[in-house]
């Protein structure tokens, strides 16, 4: 097993500190989900981890070796981000097949047959120019590059953002197929948490430039609860636990509780339910920025 590790990463853009002393560890052989609100620092973190963007402070290593300007280390990683439809000189008129040829030259494990299969699956016309692609087609091309790179660690930044529901499901199944067949590591950032949550062995939640959680998804959800009922009963049951996003309606109250571990029984006459990852994420992040 290898580890891609970021330690004490700080990134500033002018006066804004977008990553505040972030520690993160990506172990190979797992599928990771990276979730966070817009502007939380997801893309910055991913681009720093893959040495496409320098950090102001901190170190990025893979198995102890620095990643920055380290060709050998970087050849193990693919960071496929959305292709820009404009360049400094105007519209990006490169053809899809030429874009893929560049990727083929770059990734030493590139699988051309697999790339062709995916072009068919996503129904992409390789002769089309990038600036003529729809949002969904752009997403598909970034997915094709990521998958066909066969890189040991494959990072996808919001791969499903422009895809319709059919293509999204196709993508999730592709990842599972590939993962089951090869054990490649995937790091996937997404806003569509609900439909991808069951894919992630581990989840990383980033908020406001800080990683607030990095944990096995099942274990995390096993200690998260939604407690509802009459206000005083809910308060009593939730006492001593970490509480997120309390909401009241009339005499009723709902809180999201994140306990240290699974709780067998909450005291009193309250309703206790499981919390899906998306709702937990919402509860944890919805109030954060008001306090800050």
């Amino acid at each position, binding site marked *: 097993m290898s580890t891609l590790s970021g330690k004490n990463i700080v990134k500033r853009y002018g006066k804004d500190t977008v990553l505040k002393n972030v520690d993160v560890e990506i172990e190979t052989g*797992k*599928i990771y989900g990276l979730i966070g609100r817009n502007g939380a620092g997801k893309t910055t973190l991913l681009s720093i981890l893959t040495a496409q963007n320098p950090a102001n402070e901190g170190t990025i290593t893979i198995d102890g070796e620095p990643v920055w300007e380290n060709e050998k280390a970087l050849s193990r990683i693919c960071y496929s981000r959305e292709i820009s439809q404009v360049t400094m000189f105007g519209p990006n008129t490169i053809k899809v097949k030429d874009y893929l040829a560049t990727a083929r030259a770059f990734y030493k494990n590139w699988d051309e047959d697999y790339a062709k299969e995916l072009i068919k699956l996503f129904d992409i016309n390789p002769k089309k120019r990038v600036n003529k692609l729809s949002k969904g087609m752009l997403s598909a091309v970034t997915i094709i590059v990521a998958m066909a790179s066969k890189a040991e660690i494959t990072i996808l930044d919001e791969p499903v953002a422009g895809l319709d529901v059919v293509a999204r*499901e196709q993508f*999730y*199944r592709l990842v*599972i*197929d590939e*993962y*089951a067949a090869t054990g490649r590591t995937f790091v996937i950032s997404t806003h569509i948490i609900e439909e991808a949550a*069951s*894919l*992630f*062995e581990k989840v990383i939640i980033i908020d406001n430039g800080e990683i607030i959680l990095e944990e096995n*998804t*099942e274990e995390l*959800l*096993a200690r998260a609860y939604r407690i509802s009922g009459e206000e005083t009963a809910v308060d009593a049951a939730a006492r001593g636990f970490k509480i997120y996003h309390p909401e009241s309606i009339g005499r009723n109250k709902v809180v999201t509780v994140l306990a240290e571990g699974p709780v067998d029984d909450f005291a009193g006459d309250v309703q206790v*339910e*499981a919390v*899906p990852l998306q709702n937990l994420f919402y509860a944890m992040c919805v109030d954060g920025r008001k306090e800050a």
Partner: protein
Amino acid sequence: MLSNLGEDKSIYLQIKEMIEDEILRDILKEEEQVPSTTELSKFYKINPATAAKGINLLVDESIIYKKRGIGMFVQTGAKEKIMETRKKSFRETFLKKIISEAQLIGISKNELKKMIDEENDL
């Protein structure tokens, strides 16, 4: 493999219970092969580690067993075993819910008994 996965329970437990249900319904018969972790994870779009966790619980409880290099199979006597375990939790998981709902809406003990008798006769 008909059911959809819900969000009210850990996925690995749902995988486990679903395979148990299929054994109870004779969809999976004793000494028959159980879908592999990979098949389950593809079908349900879940992480293979999660599917494996559910499968391993069944192995631990001797509901299924591993044939090296071939796959997982339903243990002889598995159905009986599952029935026993489920009977034990029947009160906790079903009866208590029914009774608390009955109390909440004012169904008397006798009314409830009568209803159960009537349903059972159908």
